């Protein structure tokens, strides 16, 4: 009788696993995802192999396309780096979107008002610092409430996104509007634009430096260690005499500041103006980047480039094969789903009911 009550599938945490087997699972999950991706492409009446070819061709085949792809990857990588310490701490910062936006607002304020009077490099430094502080403060607010009153940071950071986006929407139609009724903020003066290096705004150098800095911060510093301890157990951290509230606030400020810098790079290097969609979903997509990279800074470079290839390739897919852009969103979704779920199978194993006896005997 008892055996009948056993669920059909049970899950058990795995012990260690052969690293080669782990990578086999990961690679095959990508292959399976790509094969599943055939279905939506077939539904549009196109050859899936050709479609994947167009995605690669449209994102990597020419210098211009590579630049465009890198331009998409830069904010993804920057924001993934920003949220990594929060996630390590098990503080769910899903407010990257809002922190990017507020950084962009602060940078835009100086771009619009001081472009004529402040020299180029100095203006860019001011915009950089202003964006970092604004993004940092935007992230600090939920961290403060979490530390003092243990509010739910997931909801809090999420709601802060909408406030930030609302502020920009108001600025667009109000004080910063260009031509009356146009809802458009004027394009930045050249003095407020990031210079290009190898055809892409120099933000790409900045994020690569951040990759190294973040790696050292997380792995080689006392603060990085504190973050790891809190992530494992906040009580252990308290017992060890750490000021958990303070560490949460400090880490969130750093996280928000990096997001703010991403916002600065986006308005000053890529968009040359501010609008309410400035974050463009990066704050959310970068969560996937961070997870898939298992919070490893260097792995984030490849994951963000992979997502950028898919996104840029999707545009070419639309123009060359008239495949709606939403189809490639579906493929991206399948790919991310497969890659995230394969991590699940690496950490857990499924036990079918029939096997139970054998397992027990063993």
């Amino acid at each position: 009788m008892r055996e009948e009550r056993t669920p059909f599938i049970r899950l058990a945490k795995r012990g260690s696993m052969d690293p080669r087997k782990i990578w086999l699972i990961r690679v095959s999950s990508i292959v399976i995802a790509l094969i599943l991706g055939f279905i939506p492409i077939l539904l549009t009446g196109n050859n899936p192999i050709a479609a994947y070819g167009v995605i690669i061709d449209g994102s990597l085949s020419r210098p211009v396309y590579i630049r465009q792809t890198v331009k998409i990857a830069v904010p993804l990588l920057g924001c993934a780096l920003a949220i990594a310490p929060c996630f390590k701490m098990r503080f769910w910062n899903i407010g990257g979107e809002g922190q990017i936006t507020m950084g962009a607002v602060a940078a835009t304020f100086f771009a619009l008002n001081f472009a004529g009077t402040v020299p180029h490099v100095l203006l860019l430094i001011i915009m950089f610092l202003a964006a970092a502080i604004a993004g940092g403060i935007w992230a600090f607010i939920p961290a403060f409430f979490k530390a003092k009153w243990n509010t739910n940071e997931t909801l809090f950071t999420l709601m802060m996104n909408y406030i930030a986006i609302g502020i920009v929407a108001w600025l667009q139609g109000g004080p910063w509007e260009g031509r009356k009724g146009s809802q458009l903020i004027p394009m930045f003066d050249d003095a407020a634009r990031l210079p290009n290096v190898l055809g892409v705004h120099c933000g790409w150098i900045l994020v690569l430096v951040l990759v190294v800095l973040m790696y050292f911060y997380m792995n080689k510093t006392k603060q990085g260690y504190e973050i790891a301890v809190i992530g494992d157990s906040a009580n252990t951290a308290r017992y060890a005499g750490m000021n958990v509230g303070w560490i949460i606030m400090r880490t969130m400020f750093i996280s928000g500041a990096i997001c703010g810098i991403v916002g600065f790079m986006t308005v000053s290097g890529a968009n040359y103006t501010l609008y309410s969609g400035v974050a463009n979903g990066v704050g959310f997509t970068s969560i996937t980047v961070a997870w898939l990279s298992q919070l490893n800074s260097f792995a984030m470079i490849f994951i963000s480039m992979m997502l950028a290839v898919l996104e840029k390739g999707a545009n070419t897919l639309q123009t060359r094969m008239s495949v709606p852009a939403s189809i490639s969103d579906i493929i991206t979704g399948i790919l991310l789903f497969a890659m995230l779920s394969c991590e699940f199978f690496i950490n857990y194993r499924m036990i079918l009911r029939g096997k139970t006896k054998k397992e027990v005997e063993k």
Partner: protein
Amino acid sequence: MRKLGLMLLALVLSCTMLFAGGAGETATTASADGTTTVKVGLICIGDENDQGYTYNFIRGRDEATQILAEEGINVEWMTIFNIGEDASCIDANIEAAEEGCQIIINNSYGFEPFMLEVVDDYPEIEFISCTNCASWNDGRDNTHNAFANIYEGRYIAGVVAGMKLQQMIDEGQITPEEAVIGYVGAYSFAEVISGFTSYFLGARSVCPSVTMKVMFVGSWSDATAESDAALALIDEGCVMISQHSDNTTPATAAQSRGVFHTGYNNDMTGIAPNASLIGTRIDWGIYFSQAIRAYVNGEEIPQDWCAGMGEGAVVMTPLNEAIAAPGTAEKVAEVEAALADGSLEVFDTSTFTVAGETLTHAYALDTDGDFTADSEEAVYDGAFHESEFQSAPYFTVQIDGIEWLNSAY
């Protein structure tokens, strides 16, 4: 290892590149049979499913293709849909340029500043921004603007609406004071203000007691908000709905409440047969075919193109005879003729007042980039001359008789 996996993936995918379609031709190609092929990009804010703004461009595209095919010019279109008025427009223009388009047309007002970020990298490609106005002042040879005198079509739609309202007054269905038009506008922006003012003046020319309420929705295309605004206007007592927004939902809202409607961009009598009287639209086929023909013949594409009903660039959609007031068709023909021969000015300053005064002065152009018009007097010979100094409308005056319910947008 992860790196290896990704490289493997990239390798597998690049093997498939052989099957991929290559980039397009970069020069106008004349084939043996005497036809010429030109590749044109069309970047759209929506897609044809809006049955309004973008659909109207697609109609223009197909019409131009047909006109030019008869002249031996093949147009290969690359149409990019659903681009926002944001940095994705920069990317779309780069994409079209890299894929070999020789002419790139941007269909929405807000695309122009982003388009201008790309034009200098591709001096051999001609860029066109429809409905915007930077080209005359941007010092570049490869940028162009185009618009049509849509205010003429709106004036006539207003006449049709006014005749219906007057019929309702004469038949005792409403009192003269209840002849209120509700107008769903996108933004409090010159193109919209010019449009609803001309519409109102058309209505008042045949129904003297008419007044109008305008509600802005803060978006060019938001089907739900447009419907909500129309319903709110009907709740405020409006018995006639018109619109300057991209969707057909104001028409269906009017139909559902038993009031009348006139449309924009498309014939909406099909989806609201008991409400929609007539519509007006720009026939972009006229401009597209002229611009592409000029390009193929090695001539200059007009720097700032503008044409009106006389040239066929603005057309009325079929009149819904079943519900229009008797005599409407004749009146429309009469007004069309008067507009064509210049005996009727839409913005005749003797037909409206601003804060009780006759309008005597308004500038047309902004020359210093501060977004306020500062030169070229638009008011002369007893009328405000719209779309004369640049194709994009510049009428921004709030006239008496039109109430703005919200001007935040």
